[in-house]
């Protein structure tokens, strides 16, 4: 039987709906941009390699004020997301405890304009991996 997330939530609305979303339930999100800091602060001199972190974001934002992004970093203890072209680049920190079923998180971010979005994951062994994606913010119109 197929259940969409919306139906599942509707069914569980009387119960503790959020417990159906382990990725969210166990990821602790820090929304304060100052707390997230910059990539250099997070890396603290270490270098980040590519691979092992999936950053999903649209190529062109449908609405720059609320751009859905998600990160998936198996084995990560913490993932930080940066909008490198925003006045304050820090966007989100996700920390994953030992009970996390998956090191996956999603949120919506605000982008001041076309820019690169970067995610950096700190792995359990202290190493870092990173992924980058350009998201275009356009005024739109004129589609063929």
């Amino acid at each position, binding site marked *: 039987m197929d259940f969409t997330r919306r139906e599942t939530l509707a069914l569980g609305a009387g119960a503790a709906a959020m417990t159906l979303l382990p990725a969210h339930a166990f990821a602790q999100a820090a929304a304060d941009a100052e707390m997230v800091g910059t990539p250099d602060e997070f890396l603290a001199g270490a270098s980040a390699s590519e691979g092992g972190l999936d950053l999903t974001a649209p190529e062109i934002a*449908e609405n720059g004020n609320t751009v859905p992004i998600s990160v998936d970093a198996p084995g990560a203890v913490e993932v930080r997301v940066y909008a490198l072209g925003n006045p304050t680049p820090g966007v989100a920190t996700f920390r994953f405890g030992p009970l996390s079923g998956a090191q996956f998180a*999603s949120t919506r971010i605000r982008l001041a304009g076309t820019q690169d979005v970067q995610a950096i994951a700190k792995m359990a062994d202290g190493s870092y991996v990173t992924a980058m994606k350009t998201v275009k913010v356009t005024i739109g119109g004129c*589609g*063929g």
Partner: protein
Amino acid sequence: MISRRDFLQVSMAASALVGASGFGKWARLAAQQSLTQDQLLQFDTFGNVSLIHVTDIHAQLKPIYFREPSVNIGVGPNRGEVPHVTGADFRKLYGIDDGAPSHYALSSGDFSSLAKAYGRVGGMDRVATVVNAIRADRPDALLLDGGDTWHGSMTCYKTAGQDMVNVMNALKPDAMTFHWEFTLGSDRVAELVEGLPYAALGQNIFDAEWDEPAELFKPYQFFERGGVKIAVIGQAFPYMPIANPRWMFPEYSFGIRDENMQAMVDEVRAQGAELVVCLSHNGFDVDKKMASRVTGIDVILTGHTHDALPEPVLIGDTILIASGSNGKFVSRVDLDVRNGQMLGFRHKLIPIFSDVIAPDPEMAALIDEQRAPFAEELAEVIGQTDTLLYRRGNFNGSWDDLICDALISEREADIAMSPGVRWGPSLIPGDPITREDIWNVTSMTYGEAYRSEMTGEFIKVILEDVADNIFNPDPYYQQGGDMVRIGGMGYRIDLRAPAGERISDMTLLRTGEPIDPARNYVVAGWASVNEGTEGPQIWDVVENHIARLGTVSLDPNNSVEVVGA
């Protein structure tokens, strides 16, 4: 054992032979003036599966003229690649003789005189004849509609797409995907889709709030044809909420979502699909890139960018089929699928010469029935043209020159903007301009002609933004339209410059002075994606202008200087 790739290459050559012999014959027949329906439909049935593809019909029920572009520049990896080859270069590439029917159908150049010789193209009653003929060869052929079907004419606008739904239902497609349909508004789309007797597909149509697949649209549909289990995966236009007004369908989110496409391909393969077909409205270059990133798709039926290619393009093991627009072509693709593998194909892009292919009488009657309530309005002659009126081209087309003139004179503006859409048939010199003709190039659900003040700096921002939507070297960042058309202003564009630095030398044509970034200019335009846009409908603005002119006569437009092509 011969590999699948070898097979594809062998059959690619075979396919090219089919195409080449077709072209050669037509060229000879052109000289004899004896092109026949049998020759256009001639096809040696091949393999065990037939696909029929129509796309981007834009509600053109009746035969029309449609001039293909002379300027269609490819950038990045697509520089000089099809479909970015036009005119004489295109004919040379495919071995088409000058003046041959394929010259007229597929390329620009000498259009007005060839149009007089070969007549109009398209007409859904002729398309029905072709579809029926293919079904006579292969009764279980799959008919797939790539979308942009319920948009583009007065009757479609006034019936909110019902005329096209009625006609397509009679044609009996097996599946469809979408783009302009959504500009009918999500309530109307839901109403029409819920009543469709065929599959409404889009793996990339998501619920905007929940970012999960929308319930109304299935990602794929299975068909059993010729003993082959076929999965058709839909791919709607990815950038609908950006290129078209998001407020008309706020419940939906789109995007390319090629990771989800791969997941769907894997899912249908796991369920036993032996042939995977993607019915796409991505646009050709986006589909090329998607074919290089997603594995396991056998055939992509492309749409959106209105390209008509006489041969498939092979990307890895995937064949891409481009079937034109406005009802001008039907593609037939025969496939040999055995033991879960596509072993070969034969393809023909069938041009719908309306004077050669007989109309299907039942479909003709159904079309007349849709048009009858509006017949008088449609037929009223507003003026006539001494100039070829066409739309396609990266920077301008004479229809848009006329529309921009109308906006400047009727709305008393310094500068006019007309959206770079690719739909809209052509008229040849000497043709009357009817109200239907005007609606065919302007009809939409957000056609209000605005008039506002913009600074020179903001006008540049708009041009840079649209330019990047066409000339970004990465196709995934392109939206597939053409450059916004500008009246009253000239500019220079450097296609190799980075985003934000392509446009320069903006000049107000009326005075010859450079555009002042700080000064306000009165700008009139239409098709704004902003909610609450006010103004008269663009078709009324254009009608008033043409009625005032009586006869349209336009000078060639040299106001855009292109470098780096």
